[in-house]
């Protein structure tokens, strides 16, 4: 029963913006534990795909299933609670709060104690430990008291991932986490993603095809809203269609 460990599935997922077809009948399946890269040229619909998956945009038609359950059309906060976390293409953090406070917000989601309006947040030691653990995972543990807006771009990206992790998702969606980084930051975040993929299912949107090849188990190529190829990294690099629309266009 290979179908059993399919964690995410879309059927005929379509999104139109007026006359523009951003997603065109996308049928997509993701296995539990997989690290899947989605690549494709600018405007291919990668971000739109994640936005529709997470309920930030309603699909025009089609369905999304998570762990076998139809989640199409649920508001995004409900989808998050089911265990899907999204880290956006543009850094999306709480700029005026410290690293610790940034991660805390999502961490609260995990703990029942937080439903009591009159507990002092600070006294909730299990949450504090969890926040510290997350910060350690992404390598921000020695910057926990720094205000987020003062961090370097790379650290802000890491913080964004940490925030996404704080809700303890089973599926992590990362929209171009490696874009616009210095060489050192690139290596750092690549390592973090590799480490995370040992315990989580991940969809990684990536512009840099080499990075995608190195990290992913499997690659999906999107062009003008359609999946034009899917397979192991080696298959993708040899695929003629991919070379034409993606690699070709880049050169």
């Amino acid at each position, binding site marked *: 029963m290979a179908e059993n460990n399919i964690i995410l599935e879309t059927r005929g997922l379509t999104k139109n913006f007026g006359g523009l077809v951003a997603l065109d009948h996308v049928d997509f399946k993701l296995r539990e534990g997989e690290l899947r890269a989605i690549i494709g040229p600018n405007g291919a619909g990668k971000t739109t795909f994640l936005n529709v998956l*997470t309920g930030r945009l309603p699909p025009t038609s089609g369905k999304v299933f998570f762990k076998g359950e139809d989640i199409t059309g649920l508001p995004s906060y409900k989808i998050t609670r089911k265990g899907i976390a999204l880290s956006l293409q543009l850094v*999306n953090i709480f700029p005026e709060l410290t690293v610790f406070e940034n991660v805390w917000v999502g961490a609260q989601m995990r703990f029942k*104690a937080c439903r009591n309006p009159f507990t002092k947040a*600070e006294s909730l030691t299990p949450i504090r430990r969890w926040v510290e653990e997350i910060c350690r995972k992404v390598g921000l543990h020695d910057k926990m008291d720094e205000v987020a807006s003062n961090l370097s771009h790379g650290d802000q990206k890491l913080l964004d991932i940490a*925030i996404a992790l704080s809700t303890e998702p089973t599926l992590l969606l990362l929209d171009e986490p490696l874009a616009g980084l210095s060489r050192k930051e690139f290596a750092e975040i690549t390592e973090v993603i590799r480490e995370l993929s040992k315990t989580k299912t991940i969809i990684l949107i990536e512009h840099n095809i080499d990075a995608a090849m190195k990290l992913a188990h499997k690659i999906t190529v999107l062009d003008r809203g359609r999946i034009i190829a899917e397979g192991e990294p080696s298959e993708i690099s040899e695929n003629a269609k991919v070379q034409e629309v993606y690699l070709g266009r880049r050169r």
Partner: protein
Amino acid sequence: MKRRFKPTLSGCVLAIAVIALVVIGPLLPAGLRSLLIDIMIFSIYAMAFDLLFGYSNQFSYGQATFFGLGAYGILLPVLHFGVNLWVGLLAALILCVVFGLGLGFISVRLGGAYFVIITIIFNMVFYLLSLDWTWLTGGDDGLTFTAPPVDLGLGQFSLYNPIVNYYFILAFLVVSYIVLRRLVESPIGKVLIAIRENEDRASLLGYNVFRYKLLAFVVSALFTGLAGALYALRNRYASADYFSIILSGEPIVWTIVGGSGTLIGPIIGVAIINPIIYYVGVFWKHYLIIIGLLLILIFRVSPKGIMGVIRSKIMGRG
């Protein structure tokens, strides 16, 4: 355990301030005591506004709606049904929660710039209705009533005694502060702050942003109504003016001067602005110039208000 959240003005300083207020109460000249009572009532109003604006980033220009509702919410039952003080207060608070839910549902749903406009419109509607429905509100002339005694089980105290009145209001201020402080330091408060900082991210984390904002709206309505009820009690009077849009603007000034998102800041704002009105306003009708200059000064020196200065200079954090 190391503190990791931003420090607030230490409880110690506040406790000393409260003890000082308790001790000096009976010693004060009547005029000053009366001014302090006003400051304390408006401090509750200011904190209620801060919860809404400073913690959940909802800029209301219509809070007087709830100030007026609170005032009439206690006045009318006491006047017409002779209920006791606690029943009257309860009625006022329930009224404010009910209207807070209703008006909040609409204005929070619309959100953003609409929120400001809708709160103004609601305020105008209530103001005009209260002017018009003189049979209910007394309109411009207002209604007077007899303040019921404070019955604590161990004896009755008359609010007509200015010192009783003073302690009565002080007690409500302290309780309001403690409740609101606990709320903003609870996990709910952390979510409100997160919504203020980045609403989109908060909802991405699984929080129902609408519900949290509505909660802030209703709690703010409740405490604004409490301030209104206390003000009516203290004056034994309410009129359409309690719904005045000018009254909706005042907490904005207090909060800007004192520093939003701090609870204490807006209280400091009241304590600075109201004496200016009280002492300068009586002999110089252009006293608003002083307040205007003060606002400009604050904007130039410390956009985060007086609490911003205190936090960065004394506690080493912005």
